[in-house]
């Protein structure tokens, strides 16, 4: 019996390997977020990647660029600082390709991230939670210096990180919207998503597109710096590519994570809530056009916190957890 023709093609694609299937994520309109009829709000669901986060694109790019450059071969131990998602993505890819992985991660991330890393076989080294991701970066750099047998991709400084978005995320968005992109909002962590997409969008669209960074306002218990000179700016960040840079508190990020769930049915992580909040602010300022924001990861890895069901003020360690 002949099957009826598919209404949507290519229905996600067909791949010979899980690593090959990374990317090609859906773009979904969020109509309840639209402040007026002419402004259309779109979510790029990076949560649909194999390990549930945008970092699958980055991890694949980091490993495959190193392979192409002859820097690593199976058996080589990989070392990387991460607040979790890059570690999980690297762990999956390294286990597929035969690289032992050691990750350095703050000790106050959610327990699900630890479980996911162990599940894929990664070894975890914890850094002091009160130093946030800065502490993980500093510890990993020290470990790499002390033991040259490690290969550290270093997502904060490796051009393969933004390249994954320049060649992947951005062209997919341009394709889906026929090049009609007026504003783009993403989270600022390593800067990879923002820099890669911004460079591609500015090249293709010029000043028509507004590039907006949403960044975490680290809770006070996470600001464990002795001096401002302990600060850290990821080397791949070029502020001249940004038109706006707006911070979001943990509390607002959680409130908007719930709004995505309750109003749009989108089960996303806390960074996506923060980015959605900034996207709503930018959408309010627009008269018409398309605004795209990134849904960085899914909500599963934050489930134990209770943030999807508890009132926001009852979420434990709201300010001291590294949510994103």
């Amino acid at each position, binding site marked *: 019996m002949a099957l009826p023709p598919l209404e949507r093609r290519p229905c996600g694609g067909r791949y010979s390997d899980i690593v090959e299937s990374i990317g090609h994520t859906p773009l979904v309109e969020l109509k309840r977020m639209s402040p007026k009829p002419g402004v259309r709000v779109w979510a790029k669901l990076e949560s649909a990647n194999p390990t549930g986060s945008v970092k699958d694109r980055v991890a694949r790019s980091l490993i495959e660029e190193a392979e192409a450059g002859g820097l690593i071969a199976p058996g080589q131990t990989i070392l990387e600082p991460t607040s979790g998602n890059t570690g999980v993505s690297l762990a999956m890819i390294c286990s597929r390709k035969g690289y032992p992985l050691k990750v350095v991660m703050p000790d106050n991330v959610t327990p699900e991230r630890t479980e996911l890393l162990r599940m894929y076989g990664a070894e975890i080294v914890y850094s002091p939670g009160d130093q946030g991701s800065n502490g993980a970066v500093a510890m990993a750099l020290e470990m790499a210096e002390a033991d040259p047998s490690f290969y550290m991709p270093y997502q904060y400084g490796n051009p393969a990180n933004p390249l994954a978005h320049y060649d992947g995320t951005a062209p997919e968005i341009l394709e889906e919207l026929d090049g009609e992109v007026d504003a783009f909002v993403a989270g600022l962590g390593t800067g990879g998503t923002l820099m890669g997409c911004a460079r591609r969008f500015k090249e293709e669209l010029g000043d028509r597109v507004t590039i907006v960074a949403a960044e975490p306002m680290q809770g006070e218990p996470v600001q464990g710096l002795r001096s401002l000179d302990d600060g850290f700016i990821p080397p791949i960040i070029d502020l001249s590519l940004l038109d706006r840079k707006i*911070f979001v508190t943990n509390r607002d990020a959680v409130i908007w994570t719930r709004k995505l769930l309750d109003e749009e049915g989108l089960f996303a992580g806390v960074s996506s809530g923060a980015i959605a909040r900034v996207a709503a602010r930018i959408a309010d300022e627009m008269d018409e056009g398309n605004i795209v924001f990134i849904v960085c990861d899914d909500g599963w890895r934050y489930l134990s916190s209770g943030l999807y069901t508890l009132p926001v003020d009852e979420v434990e360690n709201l300010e001291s957890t590294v949510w994103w």
Partner: protein
Amino acid sequence: MATVRIPPVLRPAVGGEREVSAAGSSVGEVLTALVEAHPETREQIFAEDGDLNRYVNVYLNDEDVRVLDGLGTAVGESDELVILPAMAGGSA
């Protein structure tokens, strides 16, 4: 006068206060008023060339002034400035 929120790392230099008021019609003027009232903050906030210290982020109503007009960004009477150290973060 604008309100300036002080991060934990700078509080010892302002007598332990979490926020202070400072006068000025631009970010540069407000921060200059702050460092004149609390001289120990000068080296942390400003670089030798008079620009912002590389590892200081200053936000006007949540927006980073570096991608607005920098120290020349206009400040209103009821505006809030937040000083934060540069930190890595964001689902990395």
